[in-house]
């Protein structure tokens, strides 16, 4: 019946071959991490969790402006995957709302996160954008916007430019299970695949998109199968195993760096908190959250591994916890002390030229600044 090719079997063979090409080889990359690297992974996971816990406190004190988004129970997938990038080589990632950990790995500072959440004038976006929506090219992360999926085409373009210029840099973009249904995800990953851009797409499957379980999002049961539509390898790994996450990502990153194109990685994890703090998760089947908490917490699992397999002394880990606490305390004090932005800063930087929009003439009466007198004096006439 099929004319131009030989039917179902060929396709499956291709798909299988693609998977094998990217499947972890005998020697796991994480074997080369060394003790320091392994401990550092712990540090970033702990920093993520503790920083979010601090944010919960601040949220309850109504010091957070807007919603609060948690990655409780998902710290391993963000940290392990970001750690697989090479910051020295100029790799770049674009996180999603539950990838605070990946930003910390790239060098985002707790005080920045706190200022963002508190809408401070010296926050990285000067109070313009919320929560972890910010970036820094120099440190290798680009801020997301709210519209899900949109960062996939953007990162396709970032990595297209690496390819065009012959730079051996790699990009990594995160999407949630829900975001795989978006228009932008599809157009972006397909373009990247056909252009063989050096891009890794992490699909963080945490079981839910807001209240919507995976089964209502898509008819596939494993999100790695989304890769099959784009002719790229699709890998699935345990997102709550930080080393496994590191391993699969590292292999995909190196594959991209070699010029072999895009890999999609599904990291299986679980969203233990609601979509945001206000969400009471009434839609979650009883016992599900507790099961993940007690049997599959990524930090607990990793601590056991460090203590048992790597024989890290417990004191070393609690010293890290201490250091993290200190860091966050200092950052909190610093962030809380910072002022909110000046109203008129809102007019600055829409364009490169002019550097600021002219204030609407009637606003002059509200903020008492000499610079505005002129505009006010003109009367109802300068639009």
């Amino acid at each position, binding site marked *: 019946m099929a004319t131009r090719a030989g039917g179902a079997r060929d396709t499956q063979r291709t798909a299988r071959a693609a998977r094998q090409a990217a499947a972890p080889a005998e020697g796991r990359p994480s074997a080369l991490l060394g003790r320091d690297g392994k401990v550092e992974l712990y540090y970033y996971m702990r920093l993520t969790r503790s920083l979010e816990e601090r944010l919960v406190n601040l949220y309850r004190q109504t010091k957070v*402006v*807007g919603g609060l988004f948690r990655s409780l129970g998902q710290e391993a997938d963000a940290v392990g995957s970001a750690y697989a990038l090479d910051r020295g080589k100029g790799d770049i990632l674009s996180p999603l709302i539950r990838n605070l950990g990946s930003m910390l790995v790239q060098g985002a500072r707790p005080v920045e996160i706190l200022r963002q959440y508190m*809408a*401070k*004038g010296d*926050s990285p976006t*000067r*109070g*313009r*954008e*919320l929560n972890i*929506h910010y970036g820094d090219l120099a440190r290798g992360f680009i801020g997301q*916007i*709210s*519209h*899900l*999926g949109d960062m996939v085409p953007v990162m396709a373009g970032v990595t297209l430019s690496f390819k065009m210029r012959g730079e051996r840099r790699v990009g990594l973009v995160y999407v949630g299970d*829900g*975001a795989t*249904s*978006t*228009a*932008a995800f599809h157009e972006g990953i397909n373009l990247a695949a056909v252009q063989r851009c050096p891009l890794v797409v992490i699909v963080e499957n945490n079981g839910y*998109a*807001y*209240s*919507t379980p995976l089964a*209502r*999002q*898509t008819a596939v049961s494993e999100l790695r199968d989304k890769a099959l539509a784009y002719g790229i390898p699709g890998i699935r790994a345990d997102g709550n195993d930080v080393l496994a996450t590191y391993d699969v990502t590292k292999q995909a990153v190196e594959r991209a760096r070699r010029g072999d194109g895009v890999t999609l990685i599904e990291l299986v994890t679980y969203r233990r908190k609601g979509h945001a703090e206000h969400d009471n998760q*009434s*839609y979650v089947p009883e016992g599900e959250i507790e099961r993940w908490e007690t049997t599959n917490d990524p930090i607990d699992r990793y601590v056991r591994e460090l203590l048992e397999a790597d024989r890290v002394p417990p004191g070393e880990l609690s010293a890290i916890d201490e250091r993290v606490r200190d860091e966050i305390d200092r950052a909190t004090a610093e962030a809380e002390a910072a002022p*909110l*932005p*000046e*109203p*008129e*800063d*809102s*007019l600055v930087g*829409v364009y490169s030229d002019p550097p600021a*929009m002219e*204030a*609407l003439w*009637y*606003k002059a*009466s*509200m*903020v008492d600044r000499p610079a505005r007198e002129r505009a006010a004096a003109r*009367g*109802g*006439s300068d*639009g």
Partner: protein
Amino acid sequence: MAEITYLEAIRQALFEEMERDENVFCLGEDIGVYGGAFKVTDGLLARFGEQRVIDTPISEAAIVGAAAGAAHMGMRPVAEMQFIDFISVAYDMLTNYVATSRYRAGLPCPIVVRGPSGGYVRGGPFHSQNPEAAFLHTPGLKIVYPATASDAKGLLKAAIRDDDPVLYFEHKFLYRRVKEVVPDGDHVVPIGEARLAREGTDLSIITYAACVWKALEAAEQLEKEDGLSVEVLDLRSLLPMDDAAIIATVRKTNRALIVHEDTRTGGVAGEITARINEQAFEWLDAPLLRVTAADVPLPYSPPLEDYVLPQTADIVAVARRLAAY
């Protein structure tokens, strides 16, 4: 009869229309089990079941497109955008497919697309948008944007019953802040008719949505402090626009300011200015002035958002200028 909130008015309209007509159904993200991000569809799933309250994937273009297809077959879909900001993803479907359907193909497309809109809520640039200006420009669509609980209910019923596609923008700042006793029975507010929110003789404020309340506050203050009699016209419908009501108030007071929360350039106020200019030029004793957001993406930090969005004090300041002109 008890007071109900603007949000509850919307919920009631959905409920009553779904009871009235089995062809009415809802689709959108997290509207079923969860009852919607703002709980606007709370209780619908329990009452009407999964077939009529459909949780969709995160696919705004498909939500709108599927609504259109179902509408062709005689259904009356009400599509929710979780935040109206995401309607941008369905921009092609709406402006090219939905809006032209009747004209190019004789195919009715009676859908409603609704969702939480507007700012003053520290939502930042992507959870505060006012998308009306982007669609005002599309023949074939209708646009409503109520300010009161009664209008929220009555316009949603009218939108669902309308034989053409209606964008129904609901202001999330008003959801729980505005309450009133809504008329009993089958309360329907016709699309295309403005509402005189306050009578006055010295000048007119033409506005809609959350700014209606700021205009009313300003009018109050201007009356008390300046002895000015200010008329406030709540447009309610933006497409079609109630030219007769706009012209009537301008011919009456001879001075008008136009207030909207949306950014200035390319906003709805331009269109209103053009219409007044064409139809009541000789009646104008002063230029038409605009009070709007500044031309920037809406920032999130309170001092920034407050500065960018129109405030009561701005309306008062401009009204004084206009009265003195």
